[in-house]
């Protein structure tokens, strides 16, 4: 059973067919890079995995479970839940400018905490079977007291959970080398630092599959190193990574497998060794030759 399996993905925008049947699979702990010239559908594929675009046909499976099938209708809530298998780091960071680096990382965690607590609270406020059976209703003052008690324990629980979120966010930011910049706003950070905050933000929700959409393309050349270093350090047996990139050196070195896309199909798929050292298709050979000449 594959960790991630993509089957027969098609996507069109109007009359333009961008993905023309994509199949690939990925094991736990693997890193796969997606390379190819611009317009080949790399980014669209990544967006389909994160449900930012919904594929026209095809399905996506994670750990043997079908989390998306184009034939089915999904409620917003289901998409939201299934999306959390994936994390996505954008080319343009997309940090929230009004929040500090720390708050950027915390925000999704805090929202989940609040939602979880609200759900628990709703459950608790439902009268249990015992209560219904009781003949006499509790007195008003007893009910008010119970309500106040409930409120207190909830406030404590919430504070505890929120503190845990803060600790977690701080740890992740330190892991990406931004321990000193936690309280800075995105406009005070360099592009490389912004992208590292964005990576930390994606990591906070502990996605099983972390996707990168050209993570260094918006950066000055001298800043790509720090971001690539962080991505390298994220390779772990617990998660898989999908990286769309133009950094061939990096792709060759970090990837277990490489997907070469051309005109909306996977032209070649193999290990890093196979793709870069013994390319088979003419298109891949041309692509690699052009890349070597242009750098």
């Amino acid at each position, binding site marked *: 059973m594959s960790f991630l399996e993509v089957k027969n993905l098609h996507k069109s925008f109007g009359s333009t067919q961008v993905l023309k049947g994509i199949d690939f699979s990925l094991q736990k702990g693997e890193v796969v890079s997606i390379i190819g010239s611009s317009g080949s559908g790399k980014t669209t594929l990544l967006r389909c995995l994160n*449900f930012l675009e919904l594929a026209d046909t095809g399905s996506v499976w994670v750990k043997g479970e079908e989390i998306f099938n184009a034939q089915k209708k999904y409620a917003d809530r289901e998409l939201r839940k299934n999306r959390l298998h994936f994390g*996505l780091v954008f080319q343009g960071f*997309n940090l929230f400018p009004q929040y500090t680096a720390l708050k950027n990382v915390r925000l999704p965690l805090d*929202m989940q905490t609040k939602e979880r607590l609200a759900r628990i609270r709703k459950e608790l406020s439902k009268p249990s079977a015992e209560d219904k059976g009781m003949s006499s209703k509790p007195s008003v003052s007893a009910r008010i007291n119970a309500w106040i008690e409930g409120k207190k324990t909830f406030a404590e629980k919430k504070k505890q959970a929120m503190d845990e979120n803060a600790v977690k966010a701080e740890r992740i930011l330190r892991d990406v080398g931004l321990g000193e910049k936690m309280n800075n706003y*995105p*406009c005070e950070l360099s592009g490389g630092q912004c992208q590292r905050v964005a990576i930390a933000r994606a990591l906070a929700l502990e996605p099983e599959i972390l996707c990168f959409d050209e993570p260094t393309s918006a950066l000055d050349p001298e800043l790509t190193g720090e971001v690539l270093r962080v991505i390298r350090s994220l390779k772990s047996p617990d998660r898989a990574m999908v990286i769309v990139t133009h950094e061939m050196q990096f792709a060759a070195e970090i990837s277990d497998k490489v997907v070469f896309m051309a005109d909306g199909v996977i032209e070649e798929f193999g290990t890093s060794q196979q793709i870069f050292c013994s390319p088979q298709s003419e298109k891949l050979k041309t692509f690699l030759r052009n890349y070597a000449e242009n750098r």
Partner: protein
Amino acid sequence: MDKFVRILQELAAGFGTTVLLFVVTLVIALPLGLIISFGSMSRFKPLKYLVKGIIWVVRGTPLMLQILLVSFLPQFVFRVMNKDLTAFFGISMNTLMFIFVAVAFSINYACYFSEIFRAGIEAIPRGQYEAGQVLGMRKGQIFFSVVLMQVVKRIIPPMSNEIITLVKDTALAQVLGVIDLLNAANHAVNEYVILTPLLYAALFYLVFNGLLTILFSVVEKKLSYYKVQ
């Protein structure tokens, strides 16, 4: 001297009405404008065009006409006399007139505000929504926690323009006989046959708008810690 104090008292009372109309209009028109802006951006076409039509009518006709129209609605459409309304609600005729004016102002300004909100919301890059989506946020969470503060920062300059205009537009309240600042000044001019009350009134408006201008620049400075793309 006695005359001066009396004139000042009358102007202050008028100014109170002006400020009340200003505050009531803002409190109603700001949230209403946000709701209207959602309507004008709706993906449900009939709603979108209905709202856009309303905005066109409201922005395309004079506010004074709208005030008159609102004040005649109960009599001509619902066949209810104003004196019955005052008796039913237990309010004075002056208060009723003030309510008519406030209703017209709120609707009028909500439509202008809605266009400012729309411009602000549409200027937020799609990436902000997408970032919220991939982090598992609901639409409401994305709007209120991510987008809104960026919209606020963007729309402060056009909003301050509109709000300063509102201060001066309150003078239109006198078409229904409401004693606002300008109306009070006018009364004083006629009563004492001197011109100075008008100048005092001008001073009141200037100081009020001056304070608002300062307030807006303070808010702008407060929000300068972040930049929106």
